């Protein structure tokens, strides 16, 4: 960028072999993004995967946590983030059981979810139904949209 500005040579850009590759890479990236999902999908790489939605007065966080009971979950809230941690336990079956498949995983997990706006940490509700955790977070008064009436 700086180079181009200093030298100002017309056609310099076209002769730069890297710009071609860069363009191609960007096109491929765009292609992939379109294939996967219409929404931005940041690869968090941390268990559990979450879905975050926003409504006028609240944020909703959902996660699939089958087999995790509510007393094995720990949720903490700060002004703009939530931390979610727990332990998924799979009880040992009685001896003599021969396993054919073992795909379900057990272990600890912990994840911090930062929210795009300020929240009210006192108004956080969590429920666990059929293995799905739903956390309802109220937005802070200051970050809620205000209706302004026109006179």
């Amino acid at each position, binding site marked *: 960028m700086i180079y181009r500005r200093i030298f100002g040579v017309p056609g310099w850009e076209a002769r730069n072999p890297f710009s071609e590759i860069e363009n191609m890479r960007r096109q491929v990236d765009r292609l992939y993004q379109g294939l996967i999902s219409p929404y931005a999908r940041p690869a968090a790489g941390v268990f559990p995967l979450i879905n975050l939605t*926003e409504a006028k007065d609240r944020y909703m966080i959902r996660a699939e946590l089958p*087999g995790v009971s509510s007393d094995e979950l720990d949720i903490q809230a700060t002004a703009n983030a939530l931390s979610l941690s727990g332990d998924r336990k799979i009880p040992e079956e009685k001896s003599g059981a021969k396993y054919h498949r073992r795909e379900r995983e057990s272990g600890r997990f912990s994840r911090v979810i930062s929210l795009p706006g300020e929240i009210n940490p006192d108004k956080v509700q969590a429920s666990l139904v*059929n293995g799905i955790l739903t956390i309802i977070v109220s937005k802070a008064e200051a970050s809620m949209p205000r209706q302004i009436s026109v006179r």
Partner: protein
Amino acid sequence: MTDSKEIKVKEKQEVTTPAEQTIPGLVFTPEVDIFETDKAITLLADIPGVKPEKLNIDLRDNILTITGDVDRLEAADEEFLTLEYETGRFYRQFTLSEVIDQTKIDAKLNLGVLRLSLPKVAKAAPRKIAITAG
């Protein structure tokens, strides 16, 4: 307390069913544990979001089919900011090699985990038949 490992993140496995769907939507393979004892085969499947009434377990000709539908939870006024997992139907089929006593199949759904107990047919066990006086 034993030192437990950390769970690694795994993408949900999407599948294409052999039969074409009539209802459009995504289909996923649930993760399962299957173990066998002398008396029974037990299957555990992770099917988060499936209500008991939306779960269908079918056993015919030694083919076990598990189908579970997941309802959308998002309200109309919610807008997605992050979508890391998608929901849809859970579907998986197994061929059972053992003969299962169909009358004694037991299914429990707790915390989004299905526990299916498939007792084997007792081959040599004497059958007691209760007789009621009429």
